[in-house]
């Protein structure tokens, strides 16, 4: 039998019925979780009136909403511009996060500084100030330095937002690197840069990739700072999505179409990277 040749998925003594039941449960839960997304995609192909009425599974699909949201007049925020801005902000901030967090994690994990726990805690504690509260001084500062409506301000803020997460995660990955490797590199004469580039980064690459992906997701979807600080220039995708919200008229189909477009990059990145991400997260025990 072919099945036999492929090897059974069942463990020894495991009942087929139990296996099937568990698999079905997983499928069922997955479908439930995915349903709202599915529904959003469905709505994006509807007419506005059909999106905001009793649930309809069957309708004549239209691409008009996609046309609506992408064909914006000159002078308003275009999807392309927003996506470009988002890409720059997300990529630059993620790169800076890694550039800052990798040496920091080194100093917290591989050659821990005295009181490294306090330092780590400090990084985490920077996330305690409610974003809605921090917007005030940040707006004042950005205004003072004339950085409102620039990509710079978002790059800086997203770096700050993601830095604690990255330091925390990278530290836990670095802790897992066999200490002897670092010592061997020490004796072999590698300095900090050599150790990072030749030894630590290649080994921790899956973990770094997982960290970077999380940073990308959080930065890509960030809305509050983006809309408060960059309503004119340097606007990002989330702001573009919400320009489709109206208080005097239907908008759900348009919003769905915009959301689908907005989510595609991270959803694709997330889908493609999920295995690596799990592997990255499981790099040894997270400590």
């Amino acid at each position, binding site marked *: 039998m072919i099945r036999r040749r492929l090897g059974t998925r069942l463990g020894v003594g495991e009942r087929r019925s139990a296996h099937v039941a568990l698999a079905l449960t997983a499928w069922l*839960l997955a479908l439930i979780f995915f349903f709202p997304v599915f529904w959003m995609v469905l709505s994006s192909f509807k007419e506005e009136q059909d999106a905001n009425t009793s649930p309809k599974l069957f309708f004549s699909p239209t691409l008009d909403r996609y046309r609506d949201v992408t064909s914006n007049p000159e002078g308003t925020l275009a999807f392309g511009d927003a996506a470009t801005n988002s890409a720059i902000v997300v990529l630059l901030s993620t790169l800076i996060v890694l550039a800052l967090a990798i040496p*920091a994690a080194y100093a917290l994990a591989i050659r821990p500084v005295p009181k490294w726990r306090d330092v780590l805690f400090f990084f985490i504690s920077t996330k305690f100030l409610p974003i*809605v509260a921090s917007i005030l001084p940040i707006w004042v500062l950005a205004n003072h330095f004339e950085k409102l409506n620039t990509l710079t301000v978002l790059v800086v803020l997203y770096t700050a937002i993601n830095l604690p997460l990255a330091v925390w995660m990278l530290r836990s990955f670095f802790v897992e690197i066999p200490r002897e490797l670092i010592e061997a590199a020490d004796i072999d004469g590698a300095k900090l840069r050599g150790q990072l580039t030749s030894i630590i980064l290649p080994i921790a690459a899956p973990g770094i990739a997982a960290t970077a992906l999380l940073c990308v997701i959080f930065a890509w*979807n960030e809305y509050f700072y983006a809309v408060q600080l960059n309503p004119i220039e340097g606007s990002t995708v989330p702001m573009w999505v919400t320009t489709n919200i109206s208080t005097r008229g239907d908008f759900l189909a348009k919003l769905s179409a915009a959301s689908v477009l907005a989510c595609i990059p991270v959803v694709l990145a997330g*889908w493609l990277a999920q295995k690596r991400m*799990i592997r990255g*997260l499981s790099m040894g025990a997270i400590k």
Partner: protein
Amino acid sequence: MTSVTAARTSPADPFSRPWRRRLPLLPALLFAIVVTQVPFLLSVYYSFTEWSINPPTPRHFIGLDNYQTLVSDPFFREAAWTSVLMTVSTVLISLGLGTLLAVLLDRHFFGQGIVRTLLITPFLIMPVVAGLIWKNQMFSGLYGVLNWVLERLGFNSIEFVSQYPLASIVTVLVWQWTPFMMLIMLAGLQSQSTDVLEAAKVDGASVFGTFRQLTLPHLRRYMELCALLGTIYVVQVFDQVDVMTGGGPDSTNIPYFVYERSIGGGWDFGLASAYSIVVVLVSIVVATVALRVLSRLLTDEARA
């Protein structure tokens, strides 16, 4: 022992020059201090002032008045309580669900990859969009899919968001955060050594017993990480509250409350700053206790 102390302070000793160790830490630390602490200190300063921009009033120092107002504000306590409920229930439920899903996914079955892909998606959706989709298309008392299903099953429809605002928001948060928890827990499961599990099998442990006695303790660190990260992010939740309920009893959490006091209409920046300072201080106290006393995340490593 004189020689010992002498060696320790010897300037040439590479190990007693702490600044060399600290050097790689400095860029990140400086960045974090400048970008997060300067605004924080400004907030501290604002919290001692009266400052509104509608009507525009020049900022002036009023000492602790804002803090006095704050102490006597029952709505702040209400919001704090809502925040606690929202955060704790979201983190616990999504952690539980995430663990369950991770366990289900940590075995080979048909379409495993697709299932994982489907499950991961909610985490990638923009929070504002998630809130709007759920509110208008899932929860809506009239046009929501949930009520459509309920009615087909012969139940009365439920006005989810208005009847159960907290539960509705938590549902959306759980929907978004469960995949994140699932990923970490899946990572945890996959890092468990198979020897131990095989030993347990040979020793005749039941599946459930193995899970409870071996896997769960192994997963504890991962659970703590989930709880920590989840808490940090969920405490800050604003968008979902804003678009789903627009605040109200059982849905105004602290971020929304602070928002209402400041740019959401109150424009009382001094008072809003005072609230946020209190939030930060309380968070630090709670987090210290949680991390240092309850959790092994920061305590258990002996790696000098």
